[in-house]
């Protein structure tokens, strides 16, 4: 089984980092050469939103992939992938706040309260902040592994909220192809966890229950 050495792992991490930055680099390049289309702000908003969802899916895929392949080292990539989801959602939110509302916080908050699809997206964004803030080793130590893990399981809520945000945004246009795709991927990734935890509970029960009569 493939088990990278420390040097190989460092190389893999660097490669993943560079690849994960490519969508951003593409946006910057397109902005420079004027290829963002007729409505650049809409392009950036939808593009950064898409990449947030992609990285949420990829991050959620680490555990299932690790279990299915036995590649435990995949776990070492997860923090970076999660932080890239955060990076793209910050770009997404900044575009909304800056170019849609021109930092008019009042108008923005009104939007958040009034329009459910923005409420949900904003909630998902806020919930991601503590996860990003506690991503360092020092924070893991400070919180203690168990509490840290409980906190980071909010991702199981954040990802569906992100999909719901996207779903509602597309709802009026009746264009569900992409939301269905994202929704299915996230559902599969979460259901695998449910399945495994049920299976695990059963084996534990079996190990406990046989008793001499």
């Amino acid at each position: 089984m493939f088990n990278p050495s420390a040097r190989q792992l460092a190389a893999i991490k660097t490669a993943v980092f560079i690849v994960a930055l490519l969508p951003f680099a593409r946006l910057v390049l397109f902005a420079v050469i004027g290829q963002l289309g007729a409505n650049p702000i809409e392009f950036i908003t939808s593009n950064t939103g898409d990449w947030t969802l992609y990285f949420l899916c990829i991050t959620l895929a680490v555990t299932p992939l690790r279990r299915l392949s036995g590649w435990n080292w995949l776990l070492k990539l997860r923090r970076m992938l999660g932080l890239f989801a955060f990076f793209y959602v910050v770009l997404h939110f900044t575009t909304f706040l800056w170019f849609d509302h021109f930092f008019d916080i009042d108008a923005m908050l009104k939007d958040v309260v009034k329009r459910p699809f923005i409420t949900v997206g904003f909630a998902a964004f806020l919930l991601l902040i503590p996860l990003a803030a506690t991503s360092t080793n020092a924070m893991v130590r400070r919180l203690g592994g168990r509490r840290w893990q409980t906190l980071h399981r909010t991702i199981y809520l954040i990802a569906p909220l992100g999909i719901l945000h996207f779903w509602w945004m597309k709802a009026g246009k009746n264009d569900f192809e992409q939301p269905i795709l994202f929704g299915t991927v996230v559902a599969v990734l979460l259901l695998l966890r449910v399945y495994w935890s049920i299976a695990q509970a059963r084996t534990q029960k079996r190990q406990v229950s046989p008793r001499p009569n």
Partner: protein
Amino acid sequence: MLIKRNPNGIDIPFASEITPRAVFESRRTFIRQLALGSIAGGALLEMATREAFAQSAAQKLSAKTNSAYVVMDKPTAYKDATTYNNFYEFGTDKTDPSHYAGSLKPRPWTIAIEGEVKKPMTLDLDSLQKLAPLEERIYRLRCVEGWSMVIPWIGYSFAELIRKVEPTGNAKYVEFVTLADKKQMPGLRSPVLEWPYVEGLRLDEANHPLALLAFGMYGEVLPNQNGAPVRMVVPWKYGFKSAKSIVKIRFTKDQPKTAWNISAPQEYGFYSNVNPDVDHPRWSQATERRIGEDGFFTKKRKTMMFNGYSEVASLYAGMDLKKFY
């Protein structure tokens, strides 16, 4: 030769700097003649003819400007107006129509006018186009999604057609039906809307001189992605009220069931007049972004009631436009 660099450093010129088609075409003719007459003109000739060939796809359509219907806003760049489109029959992405509308055959084309009229008729495109003199009118176009353009259309008032077909006393509404041919329109495979696309107006709205039956834009016949060969343009309503690639016009007693109203009635009403005071459920309609003009650091502009066409206000006297959105 003096080569001038665009001062804004971007290779997209300002709309005001775009050379009118007639002018650059006459320049090409000049170059061609020059090339023909010169010994070393081989390369030039090739250049001139190649460019002329690239242009020949677009067919010119001339019309006299009707200055009563010209807004002073700067027209949107042709490239933006033809590559940023909502035409779900060719896909739901803004760039889909310009990529996939090549499969539409705008000629030959017939259009059926039927229902509550004394003279129902089926016309081919040429007869329809000859019903009234063509005019150029520069209109604002406001999309329900919160962006806007300014487009020089070519056509005539829909009222001219109404006059020719003589509606009966029963006619209260007009229904417009878009082509729905799977062979020509790949977007029909997707169930985003009930096909064919149907839109409608009240008869008095359709009779308003602003309501335009359009055959062209920017001095040319309509590009496929913009609704070739014939479409409606109703500038005081959101863009989706203006049916494209029309094959049937029906005069009816009852209010037509329109595509977007069927799909999401809480979001898209039958009237859908541009109204900054009535928000779309998912965004405000108070402001809009002018495509190609309002850049990153420009605040969005305020949307005007009836998109600035206040002359239509009397059509809605006594109506609560929050209820009839």
